[in-house]
């Protein structure tokens, strides 16, 4: 091995890197926003859509004159779906791209890892989709804000749906990792408040990424519960629903309340006729609800970008994170980190889905949950959520 060539390689790298690192942004110069989303790997399907939402809102802000009259420059890096890569991505955004603020994250692990970097580098981080309460409870710090809902809200809203359905005996099918356990915590806490008589009779805990749900399906079918609360999220719901349907699961269990966004357009279309009619499912966003000006404008942009009349639900996560940040900077009147933190605390901002308020205590936005009952549609060749309910988060965030 030639030492000389290695040395020159190292030297060249060093020079290139030093040159790439510029000075920090001055007044009048662009505001630099860094985004970390999984662009490769298994989480990329969702991450790329979140990054698209991010790009859309940045372009929109710039077209409308920027923030505080300053243009916005955006940098996106790949967090690859793993905490260690999310750490590198966040660090690169701050130290190489000189991002003044960072947004993003997809998995809970990514969110926690990016949040840790934000604390270390003293940079504001807005969590776009990680929901773990670990971020806003045990590991909370002042640089972390969240426009996504937390697991309390998601579990609590499922409890509200379950209670409205009048279910007294409940089975849970949650995935055996922190997201599942956190959901159960939120669900239980609010169910007890709503209906002390309702009880969880059977809990099954499929491992994350199992391919065969049969043992869990049969165990729940052998239980005398009349309603099921599941947290089998996103793409994992697809094989689960197909397997469960073949057992006649959804016919036997009267009520099924599915958290983890299986009610999103992406999953509904993927499942097609196999999407079980009559179950309740949630989603980040629903393109036919609410029919407001802000939401319709957002949808119009998204339809143009994707050339798809029935846009997916994920871009809203990236979109709203930057909307909150921009509102915070506008309110602060400058990009000073402490000033923006002060401005964001208690701030109500106009998002694509209506006004959202970030509370002061744990920097959590009152992001509610869209729930809907899966119904056949005469109009489309896929099923829809009908009715759609937006469950407010204000009373269920803890």
């Amino acid at each position, binding site marked *: 091995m030639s030492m000389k060539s290695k*040395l020159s390689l*190292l030297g060249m790298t060093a020079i290139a890197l030093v040159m790439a690192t510029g000075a920090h942004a001055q007044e009048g110069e662009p505001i630099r926003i860094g985004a970390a989303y999984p662009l490769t790997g298994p989480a990329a399907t969702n991450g790329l859509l979140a990054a698209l939402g991010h790009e859309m809102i940045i372009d929109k802000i710039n077209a409308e004159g920027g923030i505080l009259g300053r243009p916005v420059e955006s940098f996106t890096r790949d967090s690859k779906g793993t*905490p*260690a890569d999310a750490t590198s991505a966040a660090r690169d955004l701050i*130290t190489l791209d000189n991002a003044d603020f960072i947004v993003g994250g997809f998995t809970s692990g990514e969110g926690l890892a990016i*949040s840790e970097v934000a604390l270390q580098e003293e940079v504001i981080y807005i969590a776009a989709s990680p929901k773990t309460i670990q971020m806003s409870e045990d590991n909370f710090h002042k640089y972390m804000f969240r426009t996504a809902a937390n697991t309390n809200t998601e579990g609590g809203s499922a409890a509200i749906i379950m209670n409205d359905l009048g279910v007294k005996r409940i089975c849970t099918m949650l995935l055996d990792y922190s997201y599942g356990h956190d959901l159960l915590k939120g669900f239980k806490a609010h169910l007890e408040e709503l209906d002390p008589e309702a009880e969880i009779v059977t809990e099954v805990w499929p491992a994350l990424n199992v391919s065969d749900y049969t043992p869990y399906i049969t165990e729940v079918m052998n239980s005398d519960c009349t309603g099921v609360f599941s947290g089998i999220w996103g793409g994992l719901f697809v094989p689960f629903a197909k397997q469960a349907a073949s057992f006649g699961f959804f016919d036997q269990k009267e009520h099924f309340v599915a958290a983890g966004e299986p009610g999103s357009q992406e999953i509904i279309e993927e499942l097609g006729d196999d999407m079980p009619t009559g179950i309740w499912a949630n989603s980040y966003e629903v393109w036919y609800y609410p029919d407001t000006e802000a939401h319709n404008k957002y949808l119009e942009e998204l339809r143009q970008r994707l050339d798809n009349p029935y846009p997916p639900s994920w871009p809203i996560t990236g979109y709203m994170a930057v909307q909150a940040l921009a509102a915070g900077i506008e309110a602060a009147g400058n990009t000073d980190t402490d000033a923006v933190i002060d401005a964001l605390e208690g701030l109500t901002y106009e998002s694509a889905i209506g006004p959202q308020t970030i509370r002061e205590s744990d920097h959590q936005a009152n992001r509610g949950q869209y729930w809907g009952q899966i119904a056949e549609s005469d109009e489309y060749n896929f099923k829809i959520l009908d009715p759609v309910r937006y469950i407010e988060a204000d009373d269920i965030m803890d």
Partner: protein
Amino acid sequence: MPHSRLLLGAGIVGLLALLPLSGSTYLMYLSTQVLIFVLFATSLNILIGYAGLVSFGHAAFFAIGGYGCAILLRTYEIPLLLAMPAALVMTAILSALIGSLCVRLTSYYFSMLTLAFGQLIWAVVFKWRSMTGGDDGLLRVDSPSWIDTPASFFIFTLLVVTLAMLALWIVAHSPLGRTLMAIRENQVRAGFLGVHTRRVQLVAFTIAGTFAGLAGALFALFNRSIFPDSAWWLQSAEVLIMVVLGGMNSFFGPMVGALTLIVLSRFTLEVTDYWPGLLAIILLATLFFFPNGIAGLLKAKGKR
């Protein structure tokens, strides 16, 4: 070690020690990461290159070292200078334990068993929530104040990795290293020559595991957090790729592999999201056209 090489090595370390003068935090982070993976990959190469034992579960020891150090530091509030050696002792004991079972098997069976143990360690980390934080990982793994800036931590890492690499170099070029190669070439013959082959392999396994643990401890401190992904087989695969890419028939090969893989992936991702595809092509090209890796290629060029 020949004097010229020793001088060159010292020169590189000396130059690296000047890096903080650049004032670039990015460079500090990148170099620290490369150094940690240089150590991790070199430790694996003691097994692959010298002992001819291909481990698919080397990340297990990386994670044991990382979690061990993080837990002692954070949960038990033991000072770093005690926590790190204690984590290494722990990794050494577990490496010896797991190794004693693995070296009973050879070739594919050895590899499969290391994979199984790797996943077992991952499962323990994932499930033992009260101790490891489960998939929420361990956060706030704070370094003591004397190494809590990116530059001072880089210097600390440089020092530790240099000493560790020196130790590994001595191991590789000691009678133990030669014996390992003899076993790799012909286990039966080495046995007939009176070598207790399993015991020698176990020693190598333990050394490799312990140094991977050291890399893991540095990694937890560097990221200030550690997650179960560190024990996952993909992490084992990544370090294996570094060894193959750099060249397993050279002591310095994995070093080049780690540097190349990390720097290349960073720069490629700036341009395209198709890094995994590119990596696959690079690996195929490496295996078909220069099986001795980048180090082998450079060596051949140097001789020409």
